[in-house]
């Protein structure tokens, strides 16, 4: 077996050195009746070529996003990632290193995490950020739990702008923990009276902007009322590239900003791994979940970085920890920080402008198709349209015509009654031809 260095002779010599007859001597504590006598019922070892052949066949059964006009978003976005990024994250020293618990020999990881935290804080307009969460949705649930710790209340108000899957993730942990969740109805127009839901019993208000239907929300008034009632405002985003063009939540009074970072540096990967971004105010830092990297000095006074404030974490505090998270999304955070360090302000702004312009032009093209209505008042690179009939059927028929035209909202939230709504995303990858192909196919499907 190509991955196993021990030879038969090595094994025999080692057993002799230890003083046992057979490897099974080490498994003596396994109850006799549970010991496997035979190999499990699975195929035997394969060479590299055979594995490649088998997996390539499975891969070929899928329609890769890059092979068709592609407009699917709703929480994961296809962007162009510079070749440098994927090359660098495959450096052995990054790829095959563990969590940096020995800082003297993991300054590479620690420094990029420190840089990552700084980038995330600046991008969101916040004071501090952690070293990443699993993804945006789990980060959102952690943000709600954190707000409960800060306010010592346990009722979260979820805006209808929140991605239904994020809402469901918050609901799952809240139900299990006995916390209260009030979820407002989803409305493609983006209109809702969230201010009316805020009172002195509320721990936090969770608003997504750009929302799941694309609409942008001015958070200032919500933040003001939340703070007047001792509640926190949690701002959520699912498309991080939007922060290149829209006002960051930190500038509008958010207390915790959490979102999906996949859009920078990371591919679609059929849903994961992604990277959750989590930022907050300095005053709440000791209630944050997840790992934090901090600056310090070594015994010679040289600057260095370490994991810090670990008294919040499970390996020190056990059942008193702020979260149970251990492994996070280190390598995805690396991809994010490399891509963002290539972009900088100039590149990110231009990337965001391209996304917005493409979405605006797509909305115009689709609005010209008979029966289609653009529902979103404002948007960044994703908007909602309504179609005659069932959105899910329209999406299937578009796929038959080689266009991946978006996500039927009913797939995310079957009980919403919004069966005619499609979420359509457009990024810098889309060309004029893509847009024309979409409009033509949609016209044909709806004819």
């Amino acid at each position, binding site marked *: 077996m190509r*991955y*196993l*260095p*021990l030879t038969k002779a090595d*094994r025999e010599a*080692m057993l002799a050195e230890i003083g046992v007859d057979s*490897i099974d001597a*080490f498994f003596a*504590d396994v*109850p006799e009746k*549970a*010991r496997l006598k035979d190999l*499990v019922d*699975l195929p*035997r*070892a394969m060479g*590299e070529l*055979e*594995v*490649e052949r088998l997996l390539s066949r499975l891969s070929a*059964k*899928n*329609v890769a*996003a890059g092979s068709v006009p*592609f407009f699917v978003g709703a929480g994961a976005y296809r962007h162009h990632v510079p070749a440098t990024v994927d090359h*660098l994250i*495959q*450096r*052995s*020293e990054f790829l095959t290193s*563990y969590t940096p618990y020995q*800082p*003297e020999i*993991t300054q590479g990881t620690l*420094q990029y995490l420190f840089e990552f935290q700084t980038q995330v804080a600046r991008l969101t*307009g916040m004071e*501090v950020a952690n070293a990443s969460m699993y*993804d945006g949705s*789990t980060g959102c649930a952690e943000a709600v739990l954190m707000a409960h710790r800060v306010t010592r209340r346990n009722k979260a108000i979820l805006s209808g702008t929140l991605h239904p899957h994020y809402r469901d*993730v918050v609901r*799952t942990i809240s139900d*299990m*923990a*006995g916390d209260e969740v009030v979820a407002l109805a989803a409305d493609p127009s983006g209109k809702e009276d969230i201010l009316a839901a805020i009172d002195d019993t509320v721990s936090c208000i969770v608003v997504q902007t750009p929302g799941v239907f694309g609409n942008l929300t001015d958070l200032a008034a919500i933040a003001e009322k939340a703070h007047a009632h001792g509640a926190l405002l949690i701002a959520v985003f699912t498309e991080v590239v939007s922060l290149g*063009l829209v006002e960051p939540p930190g500038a509008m009074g958010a207390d915790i900003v959490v979102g999906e970072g996949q859009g920078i540096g990371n*591919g679609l990967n*059929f849903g*994961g*791994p992604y990277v959750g971004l989590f930022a907050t105010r300095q005053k709440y830092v000791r209630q944050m979940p997840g790992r934090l990297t901090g600056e310090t000095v070594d*015994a010679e006074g040289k600057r260095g970085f370490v994991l*810090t404030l670990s008294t919040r974490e*499970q390996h020190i505090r056990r059942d008193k*920890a702020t979260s149970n998270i251990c492994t996070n999304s*280190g*390598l995805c955070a*690396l991809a994010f920080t490399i891509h963002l360090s290539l972009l*900088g302000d100039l*590149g990110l702004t231009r990337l965001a402008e391209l996304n917005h312009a493409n979405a605006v032009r797509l909305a115009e093209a689709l609005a010209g198709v008979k029966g289609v209505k653009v529902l979103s008042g*404002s948007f960044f690179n994703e908007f909602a349209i309504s179609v005659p009939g069932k959105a899910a059927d329209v999406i299937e028929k578009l796929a038959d015509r080689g266009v991946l035209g978006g996500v039927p909202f009913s797939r995310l939230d079957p*009980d919403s009654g919004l069966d005619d709504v499609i979420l359509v995303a457009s990024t810098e990858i889309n060309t004029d031809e893509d847009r024309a192909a979409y409009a033509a196919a949609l016209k044909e499907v709806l004819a």
Partner: protein
Amino acid sequence: MTMNSQGRPSAPAGGETAAPQTFTGNRALMIEEPLLFEIGQTDNCGVDLPEAPQVKDRLGGLKRKATAGLPALSEPEAMRHYVRLSQKNYAIDSGLYPLGSCTMKHNPRLNEKMARLPGFADVHPLQPASTVQGAIELIDRLADWLKELTGMAAVAMSPKAGAHGELCGMMAIKAALEARGEGGKRTVVLVPESAHGTNPATAALLRYSVKAIPARRDGTVDPASVKELLDETVAGIMLTNPNTCGLFERDIIAIADAVHEAGAYFYCDGANFNAIVGKARPGDLGIDAMHINLHKTFSTPHGGGGPGAGPVVLSEALAPFAPLPIIAMDKSSRPGESLLAFAETAGELAGSAARPFGRLTAFHGQMGMFVRALAYMLSHGSDGMRQASEDAVLNANYVRARLADVMSLPFGNRPCMHEVLFDDTFLKDTGVTTLDFAKAMIDEGYHPMTMYFPLVVHGAMLIEPTESESKASLDLFIATMRDLVMDARAGNTQRFSGAPYHAPRRRLDETRAARAPRLVYTPPEPVGEAAE
């Protein structure tokens, strides 16, 4: 001095010993690297993008008022920045990485290549099912392999890492208890003292109160102590097996029986499943739920702290209580065609036995890790996976046997599983601590073992060599450890107290980092321009 025919010295000159300071602070290949914020420029860019077409913006008046302050590097600068950073990291590919419980085994590059196939890497989680049949099939196949290897009835694929898997498993237990009408009265979870910190943290997240099970003198859990704690308030037990002392819980079946008899469930922390793959199946041990760290047992790269993946296998009793989404055969709208698809809501599963407890994450799990894990499994096969477990256990026992006479084994010189636990008794009166000893290993070119964990022994040192080490590699490691022990005993404390001497950084001041946390870069105050 020897010269070659061009008059160029061909052998080192003698004499100079102490290295003089360098101007740059660099030491040849060890290059100091400033922060991105010190070298990047906000008027630079490392990506060429076309100018955006002019459109009337639809941002609803919420356009960003000021840029974020993100500096950029050109491509060559970025390359250097990150390559230099990488060179300050220890990695499996550079040397033995014996972190107990973390399973730092070889990460095959075939797996990386497979995960990057466009049909896996470049597909969206919300594409129509008809366009991702191969991707769903891959997840389904991996699920089958996991069920076969564990002998369990079902598997939840969406958990993002081990701790997330624990959360999933404990939620399944909670949901099952609630379905039985016992959710309210069963409020206690039993956790051994030797458990990973994630176990009690997970139980606490679900508002369980945690009761510790004391360890038996031999490092395992005594069924009698479990029975003593079991009553109608107990929801479940969270036990790691093989446990964090590197021992197989030999009374596991008796413990499982007692737990079940008391109406509770048995959660197993599967972090150490790598020791028994192909040798024993959790399903035959009475376990109800167990997460599997694909980034440990099945070699997906640790990536400097993630991403991981933590699928959870479930027993017959817990199988209905899995999270959404669940892979199901979908009746296609087209006659004669059947489609694999995800059931995303409980409603879609009406009429089946499924009682999903909700959703754990936005999509359906760590696909990128699934591809890598399946590539690992296919490569090893049933025979190779068993051999890998055996080699991992053999390597750990070899280290144990050859260090037993100089280091101290808290539970006696008895066989271990894939990792061997030492305590610091052998360092008594040397003035050298476990931490010092570990830091001295760094100077010898080794990543230290896991230290001060588990908490049940004093100054713990948990060594997990994994199956990826050759005998020659282990022999050198063992010789090094013996040399360190001899030096500690000989009173050469300097080798330890100041270590590491040769790493990119000397020992770092963690107290200072925590006292006044600096978590983001702040530019230095301009010199000579005092505020007054």
